[in-house]
């Protein structure tokens, strides 16, 4: 039976969290009162091996949460730790610990598929032969064997996103952040990639935070689902591991209800 909460739950397991939000808020311009509040006092823990789906409507602050975990933005208030580090202030300390799959592929157009997939490893100073071997492995795992020498313009949207996923997996970073990585693809390609992606995450034991605005996608991928309301505030949370069909139906209904509010 999954645990279902109306509010953020207390920590349920001992041991250090990979990602920990404690009262994190983010506003743009002025103060909390006068500025634009994007994230409102979020408390959240993501434990090792979890695949947490952050679900919310467009503009609810999901991407701001994402950027803060990635270290691209600093919280305005509260404490955020990723593997014990402040991801914004200790930016360099997390090199090789976080990999990201963005909404669009963000491949470098002057690099072929192999060099794009090896890019993260290159930033970590991995020797060329080793990084190419790893990149080839991940491109093959994602069905791109034979396309290593192709430049991004010669690949389809789905193939480009596969290269981006290979780039993220190749670094072997323990934490993976995904910002609606399949939303720009057609449904058939997206569905196939979703399946392959969640299988790879589970197989490699990564901790993943997956941002989405699709209930179906969250249910399909997440081992835990966190529903956000505008401004990003946790409104509902559900653990999916071990949930049967009846529980899933119940969770889906609760999510719909929460998002409709």
């Amino acid at each position, binding site marked *: 039976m999954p645990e279902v909460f109306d509010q953020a739950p207390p920590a349920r397991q001992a041991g250090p969290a990979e990602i920990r939000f404690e009262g994190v808020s983010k506003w743009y311009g002025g103060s909390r009162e006068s500025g634009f509040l994007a994230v409102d006092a979020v408390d959240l823990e993501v434990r090792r091996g979890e695949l947490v789906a952050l679900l919310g409507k467009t503009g609810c602050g999901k991407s701001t949460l994402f950027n803060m975990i990635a270290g*691209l933005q600093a919280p305005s208030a509260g404490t955020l730790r990723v593997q014990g580090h402040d991801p914004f202030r200790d930016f360099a300390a997390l090199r090789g610990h976080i*990999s*990201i799959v963005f909404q669009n592929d963000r491949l470098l157009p002057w690099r072929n598929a192999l060099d794009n997939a090896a890019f993260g490893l290159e930033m970590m100073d991995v020797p060329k032969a080793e990084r190419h071997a790893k990149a080839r492995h991940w491109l093959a795992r994602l069905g791109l064997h034979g396309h290593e020498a192709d*430049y991004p*313009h010669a690949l389809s949207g789905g193939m480009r996103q596969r290269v981006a996923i290979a780039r993220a997996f190749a670094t072997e970073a323990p934490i993976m952040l995904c910002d609606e990585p399949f939303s720009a693809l057609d449904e058939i390609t997206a569905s196939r990639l979703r399946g392959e992606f969640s299988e790879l995450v589970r197989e490699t034991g990564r901790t993943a935070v997956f941002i989405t605005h699709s209930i179906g996608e969250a249910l399909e991928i997440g081992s835990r689902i966190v529903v956000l309301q505008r401004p990003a505030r946790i409104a509902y949370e559900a653990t999916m591991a071990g949930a049967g069909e009846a529980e899933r139906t119940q969770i889906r209904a609760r999510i719909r209800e929460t998002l409709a509010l």
Partner: protein
Amino acid sequence: MASGTAPAPRLPGLSAAGSFGRAALTVLPFLTLAALWQAGSTVLPPYLLPPVTEILGRAATILTTGELLGEVLATVARTLGGLAGAFLLGGLLAALMGRSRLTARLLSPLLTFLQGIPALSWVVFAVIWFRGTEVRIFFIMLVTTLPAFTFQLLDAYRSIPRDLAEMVASFRPRRWQMFSRLVWPAVLPGILTAWKVNLGNASRVVVVAELVGATGGVGYELLQQQQLFDMAGAMAWTLQLVLFVLLVQWAISAIEAAAFRYRAVSERAL
């Protein structure tokens, strides 16, 4: 049943042109101009329209005579030296302006002001301010091409896609990695375009600078031909400069072809 695939659309007038056809189309206007010039030279005196054969002969003599070729190479060195100086300084200013809005706001009006000063005025200023010929010419080349280089490089820097910059930043690169893996490849097309544009300007300015403030080089030789009313000589020296510009443009195009193979080519653009 025959395939219903429609043939690729072709631009009118270029449908049958292969590489040979394109080369012929490039050469044809020049051949036409040379033929008209040659025809005109039969009815007008040589100091107005010297025969094409004489111009080409004089041009060949310049290229094959060590002392004369040295004058051409001096102009080439001055042009490339001035451009290199302006490129380096312009790159530095563009980097400062790209990283600091305050610097950009302070320097932009100043560079625009410099851009508005005619090249000939700079020649006069340089003659008054400096003594050595080479210093004068370098200064003139630098100051006349600096604003354009700076603005073009700044534009290239600001055009780096933000999403690519975020992607690279997400891997937490060092400063050098950020520059070599993202900034340099992203601004390279802009750099090469800036060189092509400024090369044309520089080749015109260097001649004016040499004409007024030098005792050697293509500009100085042109002044000698003018005093002798030697039109064939003036044309032959001018051709050296055109040839130099074409050679450098060709070299830049070759670099572009090699460096930008990754770019998609639209059939409509062919």
